[in-house]
């Protein structure tokens, strides 16, 4: 499903972000990516949806070699991967419904199927009754749920989340974890980069620790392992 073989990434300014990573993540797994700031977590995530291209090595996602992929095939790859960020990245002038529908609109879905699908995911993230609200009128946790809804609205089989609870208070963060768990239980692979020690140590899943651009630890039911 996701396979990285001997991945290296050096940026143009000479910074070596990834220094030889081999990793395999199976379909339906839930994986935490942990490590100190600047360890290479973000680069690791960004290479999966081809925001960055590895300097050398092979990344296979859903059977396709992402590193060698032609630019025109990138949109197709991204329709198979949902991405969620710490800062939500919602469009402030669009309603909750429109923000989620936007993801389907730009891949030219029909209006009818868009409507059906958006209402489905909004009810999954428990925001059906706030469909007409603007992002500003929602709490942080609700906004993150909108962004998760947008990420999964076109049924991707991989969900990448980069610090999804980073801006949220602990209680709200747990709500997001419940939601990610639900999504994972439906068969979607969930990869979550995080600094949240409590979550990793309580909601035990596979932990991949990255430090200095290398995988320093890979445990099936791991712990956070760093002092916050």
């Amino acid at each position: 499903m996701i396979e990285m073989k001997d991945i290296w990434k050096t940026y143009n300014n000479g910074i070596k972000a990834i220094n030889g990573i081999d990793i395999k993540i199976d379909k339906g797994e839930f994986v935490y990516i942990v490590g100190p700031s600047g360890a290479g977590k973000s680069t690791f995530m960004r290479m999966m949806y081809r925001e960055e291209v590895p300097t050398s090595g092979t990344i296979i996602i859903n059977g396709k070699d992402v590193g060698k992929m032609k630019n025109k095939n990138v949109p197709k790859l991204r329709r198979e991967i949902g991405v969620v960020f710490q800062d939500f990245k919602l469009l402030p002038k669009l309603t909750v419904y429109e923000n989620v529908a936007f993801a389907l609109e730009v891949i030219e879905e029909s209006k009818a199927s868009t409507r059906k699908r958006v209402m489905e995911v909004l009810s999954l993230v428990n925001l059906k009754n706030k469909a007409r609200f603007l992002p500003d009128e929602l709490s942080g946790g609700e906004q993150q749920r909108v962004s998760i809804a947008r990420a999964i609205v076109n049924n991707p089989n991989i969900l990448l989340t980069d610090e999804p609870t980073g801006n949220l208070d602990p209680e709200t963060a747990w709500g997001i974890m419940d939601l990610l768990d639900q999504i994972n239980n439906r068969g979607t692979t969930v990869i979550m980069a995080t600094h949240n020690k409590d979550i990793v140590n309580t909601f035990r899943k596979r932990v991949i620790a990255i430090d200095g651009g290398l995988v320093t630890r890979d445990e099936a039911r791991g712990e956070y392992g760093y002092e916050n």
Partner: protein
Amino acid sequence: MKIKTFGRHGKEGFKNLGRNGWMTFASISAVTVTLLLVGVCLALLLNLNAFGDQLESDVEISAFIDITAKPEQQDELKSKIENISEVESATYQSKEDGLDQLIDNLGDEGEVFESLRDENPLSDAFLVKTKDPQDVNKVAQEIEQLENVQNVEFAEDTVNKLFKVLEIARNVGLALVIGLLFTAMFLISNTIKLTIVARSHEIEIMKLVGATNWFIRWPFLIEGILIGILGALIPIGILIYGYYYLIDLIANRFPTFIIDLLPVTPFVYQLSGLLVVLGVIIGTWGSLTSMRKFLKV
């Protein structure tokens, strides 16, 4: 592309225009000024060209025949002239016809020559046309050598000077037009750059959820094209009205004006079409430039 999608791009393109209202206004104004100048230059150039062509085809050599030449000698001369390879035609003109034409050409002032009817000072002549106006000089010299030719005349200097002036006018006009087009393109490209920056957040999300590159580009392309077309409207109005007015003015006030301007139709419509096409081209070009630089898709 689905029709519905195209509708969306069009709508987004229009929205973009409003988003940077003043910048849009500035670039539409720039296109307006540019295309107006381009239009005036083009109208001048095309008329000059037509005038030049007309002049070129009008250049004739008058080969005056010796008064002593007998009719058969005249015939011989005619066939000799026609045998020169650069000559297209040689037409006989009697001295009476010559005088008529002279009087005609001079209009009102020509009447003073009416008194010459009885003792016509002109000679019979052959009016010679060359295949290529450039050969006039050479052919004239050749004819001058022939027997029974009294002398040869053609508007050598005037014609040569006119050609020179026409050429300079063409080149200056063309340089001006090209410079202006670049300026307008640059302004359009800057306006669209602003839109791209204003929408960078949206573009980022579009890329993340898998919009194709062209899906992202279309609205900006349409924005550029709209600026180009909107900028062409006022110049077209002014040119159509202005040209119509000019033709009217000349016809009513200066009926003897020596240059025949191109007729209003289809000229103004061709010119308008050309301006719209130019507007679309600089709009497209401007938006493509800014996309290449600022839209990393």
